[in-house]
Each structure stands twice: as structure tokens, then as C-alpha cells.
């Protein structure tokens, strides 16, 4: 099982499941991540963390530890 946190810049993946619960889970979903959605990793921060992704035509920044809760297929 791989997660979004392992995807390197330039890669495009599909979200399979969001495993985080509670506040983090809600926040990931509220900002527009859901199963079936295509996510493109744009870049990592100059210090490697956090990462920037593109979904549905806009950009999100999230830490790798948070992206670890986004399973991809």
C-alpha cells in the first residue's frame, strides 16, 4: 500500500482512500481530497517538507506526515 507522501514531484496519482480520522481526516476532505480524485505532486519545499500538490485546478500544501494518510492506487 503506497501513500501520497511517497510520491515524488511530477508524479500524478489517484486517491484510493483517506485513512486519517477526526480533525485531520475532516480537514483533508474539506480541502478537497476524496477517493477517485487525481492528484499531481508539483514540488517539495526547499527543505523537502511540506509538499505542494495540485487537485481540481488549485494548489494545496501539506506535510508528508499528513500525506501519509492519503492512500493512492
Amino acid at each position, binding site marked *: 500500500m503506497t501513500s501520497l507522501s511517497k510520491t515524488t514531484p511530477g508524479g500524478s496519482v489517484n486517491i484510493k482512500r483517506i485513512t486519517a480520522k477526526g480533525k485531520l481526516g475532516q480537514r483533508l476532505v474539506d480541502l478537497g481530497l*476524496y*477517493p477517485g480524485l487525481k492528484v499531481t505532486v508539483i514540488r517539495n519545499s526547499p*527543505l523537502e517538507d511540506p509538499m505542494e500538490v495540485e487537485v*481540481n*485546478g*488549485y494548489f494545496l*500544501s501539506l506535510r508528508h506526515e499528513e500525506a501519509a494518510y492519503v492512500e493512492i492506487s
Partner: protein
Amino acid sequence: MLKSVRMVSPTRLVALAGQPNCGKSTVFNAITGASQHVANYPGVTVEKLSGSYTINGTRTEIVDLPGTYSLTSFSPEEKVSRDFILHDRPETIINVADAANIKRSLYLTFQLLEMEIPVVLNLNMMDVAEKNGMTIDFKGLEQILGTPVVPTAIKRGQGKQDLVKAIDASIASGVHPGFKIDYGPMEPSIQAILTEITAGAGSFSYPLRWLAIKLMEGDLGVEKLLNQTLPDSGTLLALAEAERNRFTRTQEESPEKHIAYARYKEADRLNHLVVTQHPRTKTSKNVTNQIDRFVCHKFLGPIILALIVYALYNLSIVQGYKITNYTWPLLARLRDVTEWFMPDPGFITEPMIRALSLWFVDSVNALLNYVPIFFILFSLIAILEDSGYMPRMAFILDRLLARFGLHGQSTLPMVLGGVYVGGCAVPAIMATKGIPDEKARFATMMIIPMLNCLAKIPLYILIINIYFADHKSLLMVFIASITLLLALPVAKILTLTVLKNKPSEPFIMELPTYHLPTISGVLKRALERIWMFLKKIVTIVAAVAVVIFALIQFPGLTQERKAWYDNQAEIAMATFHQKMAKTAFGKTLATNGSAMELILFADRYKGARTRADKAAMEKINTRFESENQTYYAITTGKGGKEAKTARRTLKKLTQTRKKLLRGIKQEKIRNSFLGKFGRTLEPVTQWAGFNWRINIALLSSFAAKESTVATLGVLYQQEASTETLSLEKRMEQGEKGFTQLHALALLLMMALFPPCVATMITLKIQSGSIKIMLISFGYQSLLGFTVASSVFTLSSLLGLTGLQALFGFWFFALVVAIIVGFIPPRKNITL
């Protein structure tokens, strides 16, 4: 609040809701114009912005709800928005949505519609959507949702009238759309809960289907609401719990996720139905990505960040300080006017009302002096905020700061607070508002006073000039870096201890597309913040100034000392009269009253001249000469030999008076409550090498850091009246036993010493907690003193020189910072 009585029909209440970065505040400003006011929602530090407009005698009040992506009860902003809709029942909601991003916007729209309240969907930023190649079928969307859809590009001035008309129509009809999302396999559960609520609720005024959906989400806020309003909520909650468990078991998905996904699915479906996308290459998204290629670049990114931070610091603090050279005379005039209204001082006495009024004006002026700096600063911050750069700053620095329990967005407040040298804690603490993570926000707030604010600089310079004159720049670099080296581990320790129960927020955030800020938007925000600063800070600081005044003034001189000073004054006067009698002016100046008049005349003359340019000099001379020819002759010495002798006599008297006044002031401070406290502390502070003089200076810095040097100036008074020595020389002579070690301890104490009154008040306002304010004060006093005394005592024992101790402590702090950086952070994110 007082409201004037007018004959108008009752006010209509409207709420403005929308996700962040959809141009909601632009819409709010366009509709309400200048009639806005800010308050706080009860119990939380979330700002409540409201404004109004009046058409045909009907007033409509608009409350701008905080920008949120959703309406859960996880964040205070979302909870506040939701409660407002639920309890204040606005007549309609204007839902501002980013037209270029309909899919995500609808996610919030659906939640608003579920609350069974009239909604006007405002698709804003249509110009951007069109540029991106989107065509939107508004009529189609209107039909599906059953609610009016109004396209606007408010920033370009398009569609405001349509929006206002739609609000009117929506209020007039008063019907809420019946739009419902089909939650598929969850519908039976929702129905079951709905039946239970209907049975028990009777005439319940809340939207019932919404309650049922929220119960399926397991929303704690709604559960609490039901417990408070329904006598028999237990059965209902138990049913909801059972339905949730059953759903999770059978669908293998948590109910709250299923609900969110169903909303996205519906948004996706509508998006396909109403939006046609034409291929474009130059979309706002692509432009943003191009800019970010540089702004977030591995090497260029940090360089650009450093340049922006430097520009911000330079333009506001350095250039702004230059502007204060022009604004200070205005404030000085305010003081002159106050002085003019007050009774004149006596030879060695000062009327209490005069002393208090001038102290009061001086305290307020010290803060007002910063207004130009704040204006530039707030404008630049508004530009950074409106352009969309702020989140990039967090993106670049988050990893480093997160190691110390801070947040990427702590960067800006720390720069403002004086991460290098010369900031101000007040705007810095105000700027922490942008940090979404409560734990990191509080930690940032609490370390800012440790940084090097502008007002600490005079003492640094004084001490460095006396004791480290050969190593000036080394010392400045030491001070700038040591405060940061200490502040970072302190932030981490605070998050692990005092703040350990404050909730952390996930970092995930939007990196919005870049926008060109508008001048009016930026100026408006800057002025708003200045006004808030003046209202909140200055009033309280003025009040505290009075208290400190009392602590320094009372109990005053003993009768004996007072008699001694009176005697000295009489001797001086007698000598004056004796000498004057030998000149032609003897008759005019025979009484003490006339001598005093002359002194005041000379004072005023001198004061007028110091503030005048060459052209005005002549005028002043003529004015004073026509006021009193005799006094003028004596003061200037113009008028032959006699006048010159008289002038010398006057000068001697003035000098004696000054000496006596300084002596009285010094004794007064020494005997004052503050002075007594300073001396009581001596047995403890000796471990840091501080005597009572230093103690008093440090205590007085609590009112404003600038006071330290001013107080030292009084305590190290001129020894001989003939030559005027600089404070540097006076202090050096006054403290013969002082070494570089004493100086180092004092520097460290000043660097870490408690925040000034203005900062404490800001801390209280921004954190909403007196406890946080007191903890800040306490830990900084303790830390400052512990560091100063251990460095002083240890180095004395080891026989180190000042510079050796300085390097030793610097490396020690570096090692501590690195070790603390590796302690795993404590996160409170419920998973």
C-alpha cells in the same frame, strides 16, 4: 452601544459566507462601503465583522462570517459561522463562491442549503473564470439548486447592483430552496433519526434533516446542542450512535467521510452539467505555477524570502523611523500645549498636576511615535496577505520552525518582533493572528517579547559603548543571534509544557493563486489596524502609566531632606540677589518671584530657539524682546557689560537649580516604592551583578523599554556642575567596580527581560487569556534572571573574561537549541 433613534423600518439581517480566497471581503466592502465595525464573537477570539447599507429607507445589516471550507465543529471559525446561522437566523445568506472553482465551492454551498435558509449564490471572480476559459450556465445552476445565482466580478466593479437586487428579492420571498443531496445507502439511517427527532421535538426551530445528518457525522457541537435543548436527548443520541456503527460496519466507510464524499460527487455532477471548459494556456493557475517556480525554488525561494523580509524590515522599521523625525515635532507640540495649560513649576518644586500630566503625555507620545512605522508595516503586510505570498512563506520555512513547535507562518511575526535587531512586539503579536495552529500561535506570541525590539537598543548601545567599545559589531551580532538561539528552544519547551494541551491543527492549506493587491484594499486594512491599535493599546497604556507614576513619585522626600533642599535653594537665591544687586537689574529682580519669572522666561526662550530654524530665529528674538525687555537683555546678555554679568549670574542660578532638581529626583526614585523594591531585590540580584541602581532601571523598563536609559540618566547624575559629561562617562565613573562580566549579565537580562506593558496588554488581547499573559511575564523574568546570574556567577568563579563568557554561553545556547530541536514534538490532532 448607543443608537440614534430614527424612523426607519426594522433592520434586516443578512450573513455573508464563503470559502477562503473567494473574494468575500471584496464583496463585503463593495456592498457595505465604509460603515463597518469589528467585534469578537462571544467567548472566542474570532473576529465578527459587520456592516450595513440602506436603500429606500430600509437598512440591511451584513455580518461577514469567517471564511471556511466547511461547517463542522472542529474549528472555532466554522463553529461560530454555523451557530450564527442557527441561532441568529439571518433572513438570507449570500454565499460568495470562486467561479473559477465551482466544484469545491459547492461543497460549502450544499452545507448552507441543508440548513434550510434562503441562500443567494454569488459566483464571484467571473473575470478570472472567463480568462481561464470557463463558460458557466447560471440559469441551469439556478434551476438545479432552486436558489438565485448571481455572477459578479466585484473587483472589476461588475455585478454589485444585481447582487443587491437578488438579496432584496431573496428576503422578500423568504423561501429556502428545497435542494437535497441524496446520501444513498445512508438515507435509511437519516430517515430513522429524523422520525425520532420529529417525535420528540415538537415545535423545534432547528432544521431537522440537517440535525439528522450532523448526528450521523458524529458532530460534537450538535450533540451538545441537543443535550441542552431536548429533555429526552439520550434516546436520540443512542439511536444515532447505533446507526453510525451499523453504517460503518456495512459500508466499510466512516459516516462523516461518506457524507463529505457524497457532497463532492454531487458537486462533480453539477460541475459537468453547468460548466464548459475551453482549452486555455494562460490560466491564472498556470501563471501562479510559473511564479512559484521561482518563489518556491530550492535555492531561489529562500533568497527571495530573505529579500522580502529584509525589504519589509528596512522599509518599515528603518525608513519608518526616519519619518518619525518629521512626526515627532507634532507630538512635541502636543506636550508644549499641555505644558502651557499647566501651572508653572517652582524653583525646586513641581506641582503634582503638572508632573502627572506631562508624564501621561510622554507615555502616550512614546507609543504614538510608532504610528508611522506601524502604518508602513501594516500596509506591507496587507500587500503580502492580499497577493497570496503569505502561505508560500509558511511553505518554505515550515520544516525548520515546526522542529521548535512553531509554524511556517510564525516567520512574519518573528521578523516584526525584531528577529535581527529592531522590531516591536506589539504589531508582531498582532500579526500572529494569521497562524492557524493554536499551539504554534500561542508559542509564537510568547517568544516574541524575547526578540530585540527597537526600545531595547538604546541600553545595548550604552553598555556596548562603555564596556565593549573595541568589539561593537561582534556584540551586536551576539545579541541578535543569542535571542533567537534562546527563543527557539523556549518555544519548543512551552509547547511541551504550558501549551501541551492546546490543540494542534493539521498543516494542510491552500496555496491560493496570486492576485494583484488593490491600493484601496491595502490602505483600508492598514488604517483599520492602526485604529484598533490606538483604541486598544493606547488607552490601557495611558492608564498603566498613571500607576507607575505613583510608584515612582511616592512616598517622596522626608521632611528633613526637604528642609535641606529648601535651605540650599534659599542660599542659591540669596547669592543671586546679592550679585544682581550690584548690577542695574537689581531693583527689578529683588524678589524670589521675579527671579523665578526670569528663569521661566529664559527656559521658554531656549525651548523656542531649539525647535526653530534660522528664519524663525529673528521672529522669536523680536517676540521675546517685546514681551520683556529687561529679561531679554539678561537672558541673551545683549546690552553691555552689566547685562553680561547678569547673564552669568542667571546661568549660575539655573545650574544650581538643575543640580538640586536632579538630586531631588534621584532621592525621590531611591525612596519611592519602586526604588525600595529595587533595593529589596539587591541580595538576590547580586548573583547577576546588579546593584539597586540597575534594578530600578530594569524595573522602570516595564513601562517602556526606553525608560531604562532615561532612568540610568537620572541615577548617574552629573557630579561637577561645570562640565557636562555623557551618560557613558557618568555610568563608567558611577560604577567603578563594573567589569565586562557585569555588562554581559545586564545585556542578557535586558534581552530576555519581561515584555513591556503595551506588549503584555497585546498578549492578553490576542490570546484572550490573562493566564498566558502572566505566564509570559513569569517565565521571562525567571529565564532572564537565571541566565544573567548563572553566566555572571559561574564566569566569576571560573575567572573568565567578558568575551570568554560571551563565547562560552553562545555555544552552550547553540548546543541546547540543536538538542531541543531533535526532541519529537507533541501533536494534539485527534485521528
